[in-house]
C-alpha cells in the first residue's frame, strides 16, 4: 500500500547530488520528481540546453543514486527503479541504436530470457522491450527509465523515430523515456505534452562557483608564503577574471573555462611562486599577467603548436600545456611550420597563385588583366580598392557587394589556369624572365606536371566534376583551389606578389 501515497525522493540523495552539481539544484529536483516511482513519474521527459550544462551527467548520477537508494530499500533485488542510458553519438545507425537499447535494458534488468539478435525497427524494439518489461513480472510501482542521450544527433534518423520512441511509454506503461537534446523544436515528439526541463548555460557567479569549488589544478605547486585561505581567495578571484577575459568573451562553456583556468594558473601565480608578489596583491598580479589573459592559443590550441622545438623535449610531456611559460613564445617566434611558402617549390607556389586567380576572377576579366595587346604591359587593377563599395553613380544599390574572395572558390578549367600561369609567371618570377623566349614550354610541362601532382596530393587543388578520376593533366578538367585568402596572400608576399592587385571584383 505504500505506493498509493505520494512521496518525494529521499532528500539525502538530492542534497548530496546538489552539492556535487552546484547551481543545478532546480533541475536536479525537478528531474528527480519526474523520475522517481513514488513522486510524479512521467511518460516522457525532455531535457534541453546547450552543451556542457550538465544534462547527461546529472541524469546519470541522479539515476544511479536513486537506483542505489531503491536497492537499499528492497535488498532482495526487486528494486523498483532501473535505468539504461543510450548515447546516440555512439550509435551509427538506428539499428545500432535499437540494439544498444535492448542490450542495455537487458543488462540493467539482468535479463536472461530469450531475446532476438536482430532489432531493426521501432516495432521490434517495442516487442523486445515488452517482453522484458511488460510481460515479465515486476514489482509494484516499477519504473524503467530509458535515457536517450543526444537523440537529436542520431544519424540517419527517420522523422518518425522520436515520436515513435515517445510512444514507448504508452505501450509499456512502466517506461519513462528521457530525451536529452540541445534545442527541441516545437512539439517534436508529436505528443500532447511532455515536461521539459531547461538547463541554461551558467551565469558568471555560477561559473565561478563551480570552478572555485574545484580548486586549483591538482598538478600546480603550492604557493609559498600563502595560507590556504589566501590561496583559495586568490583562486576564486582569478577564476572570475579568467571568466571575464576569456570565457564570457569567447567560449562560454565549462570545460573550456576550466581548461583556461588550469592553464593560466601557473603563469598567473608565477610572481607569487617567485616570491616577488604576495597572494593578496591580486591587482598587481592581474596586471602582471594581463598579456596571458589575452592569449588566444588557450582557447584554440591548434595542432601545429604541439610540435615543440626539440629543446623543449626534455620537459615532461604530461605537464599542463600552459605550465611552461617558455614554450609559447618560442613556438611563435619560429617561422610557422604550416607556412606554405616554406613547404612548396616555386613552380607549385606560382601555380597555386594562378589557380587562386582562376578561381576567384571571373573569366570575362581575363582579357583586361592579362592581355598585353594594347598596353604592352599587363594591366593590374587594384582589386579591392577599386571594386568594393564603388557603385555606378547615383543609382547605386544600397546593398553592399560581397568581396568575391569571400564567396569561396569557383571551379576553373585547367587550360585557363595554365594560360594565366603562362601570362603571369614572367612577371612574378625572375627565372622565367631570363629564360623567356625559347624551349621553355617543354621543360615547364614536366615541372607543371610535378607541381600539379604535388598540389593535388596535398589537396591544395581539388578536382571537381564528373571527371574526377581522369587524367590529372587533362586540360579540360575542372579544378578548384582549396586554400583561403590569408594563405594565398602570405604566399604571394613571400614571392613579392601582391595578389590583391590581380583580383577584380
Amino acid at each position: 500500500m505504500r505506493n498509493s501515497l505520494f512521496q518525494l525522493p529521499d532528500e539525502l540523495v538530492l542534497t548530496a547530488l546538489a552539492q556535487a552539481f552546484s547551481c543545478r539544484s532546480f533541475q536536479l529536483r525537478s528531474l528527480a520528481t519526474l523520475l522517481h516511482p513514488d513522486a510524479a513519474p512521467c511518460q516522457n521527459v525532455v531535457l534541453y540546453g546547450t552543451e556542457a550544462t550538465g544534462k547527461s551527467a546529472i541524469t546519470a548520477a541522479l539515476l544511479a543514486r536513486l537506483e542505489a537508494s531503491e536497492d537499499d530499500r528492497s535488498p532482495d533485488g526487486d528494486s523498483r527503479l532501473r535505468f539504461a542510458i543510450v548515447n546516440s553519438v555512439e550509435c551509427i545507425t538506428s539499428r545500432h541504436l535499437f540494439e544498444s537499447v535492448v542490450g542495455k535494458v537487458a543488462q540493467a534488468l539482468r535479463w536472461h530470457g530469450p531475446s532476438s539478435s536482430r532489432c531493426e525497427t521501432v516495432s521490434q524494439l517495442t516487442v523486445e522491450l515488452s517482453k522484458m518489461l511488460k510481460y515479465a513480472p515486476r514489482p509494484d510501482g516499477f519504473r524503467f527509465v530509458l535515457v536517450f542521450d543526444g537523440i537529436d544527433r542520431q544519424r540517419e534518423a527517420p522523422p518518425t523515430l522520436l515520436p515513435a520512441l515517445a510512444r514507448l511509454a504508452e505501450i509499456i506503461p512502466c517506461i519513462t523515456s528521457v530525451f536529452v537534446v540541445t534545442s527541441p523544436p516545437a512539439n517534436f515528439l508529436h505528443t500532447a505534452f511532455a515536461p521539459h526541463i531547461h538547463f541554461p548555460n551558467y551565469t558568471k557567479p555560477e561559473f565561478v562557483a563551480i570552478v572555485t569549488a574545484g580548486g586549483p589544478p591538482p598538478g600546480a605547486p603550492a604557493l609559498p608564503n600563502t595560507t590556504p585561505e589566501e590561496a583559495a581567495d586568490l583562486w576564486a578571484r582569478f577564476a572570475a577574471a579568467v571568466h571575464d577575459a576569456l570565457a564570457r568573451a569567447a567560449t562560454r562553456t565549462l570545460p573550456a573555462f576550466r581548461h583556461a583556468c588550469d592553464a593560466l594558473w601557473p603563469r598567473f601565480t608565477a610572481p607569487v611562486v617567485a616570491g616577488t608578489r604576495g597572494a593578496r596583491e591580486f591587482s598587481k598580479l592581474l596586471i602582471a599577467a594581463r598579456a596571458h589573459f589575452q592569449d588566444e592559443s588557450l582557447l584554440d590550441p591548434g595542432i601545429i603548436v604541439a610540435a615543440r622545438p626539440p629543446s623543449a623535449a626534455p620537459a615532461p610531456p604530461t605537464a599542463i600545456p600552459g605550465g611552461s611559460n617558455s614554450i609559447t613564445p618560442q613556438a611563435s617566434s619560429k617561422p610557422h611550420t604550416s607556412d606554405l611558402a616554406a613547404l612548396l617549390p616555386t613552380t607549385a607556389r606560382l601555380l597555386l597563385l594562378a589557380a587562386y586567380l582562376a578561381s576567384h576572377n571571373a573569366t570575362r576579366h581575363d582579357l583586361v588583366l592579362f592581355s598585353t595587346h594594347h598596353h604592352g604591359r599587363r594591366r593590374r587593377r587594384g582589386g579591392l580598392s577599386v571594386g568594393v563599395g564603388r557603385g555606378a553613380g547615383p543609382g547605386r544599390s544600397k546593398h553592399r557587394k560581397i568581396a568575391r574572395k569571400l564567396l569561396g572558390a569557383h571551379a576553373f578549367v585547367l587550360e585557363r589556369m595554365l594560360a594565366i600561369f603562362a601570362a603571369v609567371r614572367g612577371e612574378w618570377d625572375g627565372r622565367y624572365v631570363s629564360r623567356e623566349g625559347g624551349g621553355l614550354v617543354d621543360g615547364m610541362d614536366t615541372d607543371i606536371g610535378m607541381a600539379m601532382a604535388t598540389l593535388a596530393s596535398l589537396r591544395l587543388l581539388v578536382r571537381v566534376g564528373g571527371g574526377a578520376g581522369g587524367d590529372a593533366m587533362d586540360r579540360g578538367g575542372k579544378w578548384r583551389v582549396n586554400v583561403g585568402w590569408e594563405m594565398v596572400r602570405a604566399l604571394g608576399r613571400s614571392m613579392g606578389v601582391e595578389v590583391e592587385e590581380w583580383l577584380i571584383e
Partner: protein
Amino acid sequence: MATASVRQAVEEARSNLSAPNPAGHSQFIKDPLAHFKSMPWCAELLSDPMILETVVPDRRTLPSGQYNFVRRVMSGATTVRACVSFVQRLQQQQSGAGGDGERVEGKAVSASKPLLQGGGPADGEDARNPFLLFNALLDLGEDLCSYPNTLHGGLFVVLMDEVMSTAANIQTKHGAHTVLFNTTFRKAVKTPQVVLVRGRVVKRDGRKITVRGSIEDKDGTPGESSPASPGPKAAARLISSAVSGALGLGRRIVSGGRTPSVPAVKSTTPSAPDPQQDSPKPLPRPKRSHQDLKAPRAPLVSDKSSVYEILDSDDEVIVPRLARQKSRAAGSQLEVQKQRQKQLDKLELAELEPESEPTSATASVIETKPEEPVKRKRGRPRKIQEPPDQGYNKITPNISAPKAAATWQPKGILSPSKRDTPGRSKNVTFGATRGGSSSSGSSKKKQAGDVTFPDLKPKAKARASAAPARASKTGSPRKKRVDAKAQDDEEAEGAVDSETEEEEDDDDDDEDDDEEDDEVCAVCSKPDSVPRNEIVFCDNCDMAVHQECYGLAVIPEGDWICRNCSQEDAGAETRGASPQSTTIAAARDGQGLPGMPNFSQHLRAAQRVLLDRCTGRRRIRLRGNDEAYGKTFQLVEQTIVAGEGNSMLVIGARGCGKTTLIESVVSEASKLHHDEFHVVRLNGFIHTDDKLALREIWRQLGKEMEVEDELISKTNNYADTLASLLALLSHPTEIAEAQAESVTSKSVVFVIDEFDLFATHARQTLLYNLLDIAQAKKAPIAVVGLTTRVDVVESLEKRVKSRFSHRYAYLSLPKSLPAFWNVCRQGLTVDADDMAAEGIDAALEGHAAFWKWWNEEIEALFKTRGFTDLLESHFYGTKSAAAFMVDCILPLSALSAAAPRLRIPHPGSGGAGAGAGAGAGAGAGGGVATLGPADSKLHLVEALSDLDLAMLIAAARLDIVAHTDTVNFAMAYDEYAGLVGRQRVQSASSGMLALAVGGGTRVWGRGTAGMAWERLVALGLLVPAAPGGRLASHGGIDAKMWKVDVALEEIPTAVKLNAVLARWCREI
C-alpha cells in the same frame, strides 16, 4: 514653551502669506470666514480650541504674475469661491491613539484618522516644532469639473499638494520639494461643494518629511456610502503621467537656478560629505537630454504614485487658503512624494508655490497616504482643465530669471551614468588642470561634493531582502515605490507612508557650463576632478570614476583596479540568493495550516491521484465530447455484441483526448462484455510499413488468443502472414478450412493511431484488407482510426475509400475558458463521484473535511489573477489541457503537510525566457517554475559568448546589408572584423575605450572565431544552405554556405547585449 515657538512659527507664516487686512484678500466671497462659519460643520471646525491660527489667504494678483494659477485661475465665482485655512495642534501624546483625534476633529474622525496617527519622538517629531494639522476649507464652484459635476482628478492633487506642502513647510526652515506623491482616489467629489482639505506631517527623518493628507466633505466619514462606479484608479494614474510629461518644464522656469539634483544625490550616499559644507561650491552641470531623463524616471512612477518635483518655498511657511468644496467625497488618498529630479507634473500647474531664495533651496518629500477615505472612482479619465483654488498672499521675491532657469536640465538621480571613459590617461586626473585644459577649457571648477549612487545594486538587494521580511510581518501587500534614495526608502516603507526630504543644497549652478570633458566619471558622468575627489582610472579596463562615486577614500599607490576587474563580487552573489528565498517560503507556508485529522495522509493520497492524472498515468474524464463518445462506444459495442463489421475515424487535434476517448470506450466495453473481444493497437509512428503492422497484428492477436508461438514464428513470409490473418479473422462459414474455429467467434477491435500515416504505406494494403473485412462482414471487426488530419479520407485510395464506412467522430478542443477549466480542474481536484474509482479511501477520518478544504483552496486559487493568467495563456495558446497539467506537476509535488498551498507558476516565466530565472530564481523560489517547452531557438542565444554572438550578428547583418541569404565563415568573419574595426575608430575618436566594459573592441583571431562559428553550427543557429554534402566536401569551414536561423532583430530580444553588440544589431 513649545506652544510659544509654534505660535511664533505660525505667525511668521501668517505674516508672510496672509493679507494684512482681511478685506484685502480679494476672494470672491467677501468674508470667507463668516461664510464658512455660517455652515454648522465648518463653524464647529473653526471653533476648535486647538486652532493656533486662522488665515484668509490673499488672492490678489501680483504684478509679476506669479502664482496666478492659484490667485487668479483658482479663485472666482465658479472655481473656488472662498478659502480659509487654519492650523491646528494635536495633542501629540495621544496622537497615535486616535481617541484624542476624535474629540478634536469632531465628526471628521475616520477620514482624517490616518492624519492623526504618527508623530511623536519616534517619528522625528520635535517638541518645539510639533507636527501640526493644516486644514483648508474650500468652497468649490461648478467649473472645476471635467466630467459633469465631478471634481477633476488632477485638482485633487493640486489641492492636496498645496496643503500638504504647506504642512511640510511648517516643519522646515528651508522649505520642501515634493519628491513622491502617491494618491488613491476613493470617491468622486461632486461640485459645487465645500470640502475640507487637510495635511499633516507624520514623519520626519533627516531631510525626508512624510506628509499625509485627505480631502473630505462635511460628513467626514465617507466610508459608509461608497457606491462603486467603474473607472478606477488606473485612469487617474494615466492622466497624472500624461500631464507630467506635458508640463515638464514649467516649474523649472519659476524655480530659478537651483540644482536640486545635487543634494538629492548626496543624501543617498552614506559617505557623502556634509551637504552644508559643500553647498557654496558651484556644481558641475551635466548635460543631459530629455531622453536621458526618461529612463530614470520610469521606475519612479510606481503603481499608485506619481512623482514629481516642486521647487517651492524655503524660508517661509506657507499657509494656503482653504478652499471650499461641497463634495460628499471624502478622503482622496494621496501619497505624495516630491522628487527633485522630476520637474514635471500636475503640480506644475500650481506654480504658485512660494519661491525660495536661490541660495538655499530646500527639497522636501511629501507623501500622504490616508487609509480610510472612500475610494474615489471615476468613469473615465479626465484632463486637468483648471487650476485649483489656491492663494498665497506673499511671494518670495527671489525668482531667478526664466532664461537662466530654462537652460537648466534636470538630472535624474538614477540616470544611468554614461560609461564615458576618458582617453587613455592613467591613474589620476587632477581635475583643475586636466579638466580645464583638455577640452573646451571653459570649465568652472566643479565642486567635489557631488556623489551619486555609486552602486545601487547592493541597496536594491537590501531592499529586496527586506521586502519579504516586511511582507511576512504585516501580511499586507505594499505598494512598491521606487525611490531615488534607496536607503531612505527602506525606512520609509517600514511604517510611514510618506517622507519629505529637506535639503540644504544650493549652489547656483552655472547653466552655461556645458563643456564636454572627455574624462568623465563612469558613475556620475561628470568630468570634474579636484583633490579629494579625483577621477581615478582602473589599470585594467580604463574605467574612470570619482573617488567618492566609487567610495575610494585614498588614491592607492601604484596600480589601482576597479571592483569589477578585481572580482570582489565574484563569490558573493551566489551566496546571497538562497537564504532570502527560504524566508519567503517559510513565511508563507507558516500561515493557516488547516488542522484536520490525517491531514498529511489525505494530502499525499490526493497528490498521488492528481499527479498521476497530470503526468498522464491516470486517464481523466472526457468533458464536452459526449456525442463522440456515444458514437464510438455504440460502434464498438455493436461489433462486440452483434458481430457487425464497422469502421470509423476519430478526428481531433493533438491533446484533445482521442486516445482517452478510445481507451475509455475499450475499458467500458471490457467491463460490460468481459472477454468477448480482442483489441489490437497499432501506431503509425511505430509500425512504419504494412509488413511490420501485419506482423504486429499477428503477434498481438497471437498473444491474446494464446496461439502457439511457433505458429507466429513460422509465418515469416508477408503473404503467409496476411493469408493466415485473413483466415483467422474470417467467419468460419465463409472459409471452411479455417483452422481454429473457436477463436473466430470473438470480435476484434483495431485501434489505429496516426491513421494518416498508414495511408502513406505502399498501396495501402493493410487498410484495404482491414476495411474490406469490416465492410464485407467477413468477420466481426471494428476499425477505429485516430488521426489529427481532417482531410485524411482524401489520401485514401479509391478502392480503400469505398470500403470505408465514412463514419466520423469529431473531437473538439474546449471552446470556452470555462469549458477549458472544466477539463483542467481534473488535474487539480477529484470529484466526489470519482473518489472510489481513484482508490481514495472515503472512510478515513477527515476525508470530507479535507476535500472540502482542498476544493475551496482550488476555487480560491482559480480566482487569483496569476492563476487566471496561466489558464488563459494555455487556453489562448494551445488549448491543451495536458500542457496546463504539466505546469501543475511541480506545484503539486511541492505540496507537503507543512506547506499545503499550491503555488502556480506565472505564464511568462516558463520556457526559454526564464532560463536563468528558472535556474536561479525559481529554483530557490519554491519550485514555481514551469516545465513548459522552449518557445524557440532563441533560448540558445543567451548561452552564447560574446564572440559567438558577434559572429552570429555579423552573419545576420550580411543578410540585410549584403542582401544575401547564405553566408560562409569567411564572409561573416570579414564583416565581424570590419565591425570591430569601425567600432575601434569610433570609440577612439569619441574618447571612450570600452575595452573591458564593452568587450567589443577586441578582434579575436580566425581560429577562435572559427570555433565560435562551429559552435553556432552545432547549436543549429546556422543551418546548411544546401542540403546534402556536395558543398560541404570542399573549401573547409571558409567556403561552406550556411543560412542564419535567427533574424537580426530577434537577437536583442533574446538576450541582453552589451552596448557594442546592440549597436551592431541596430545600425545597419
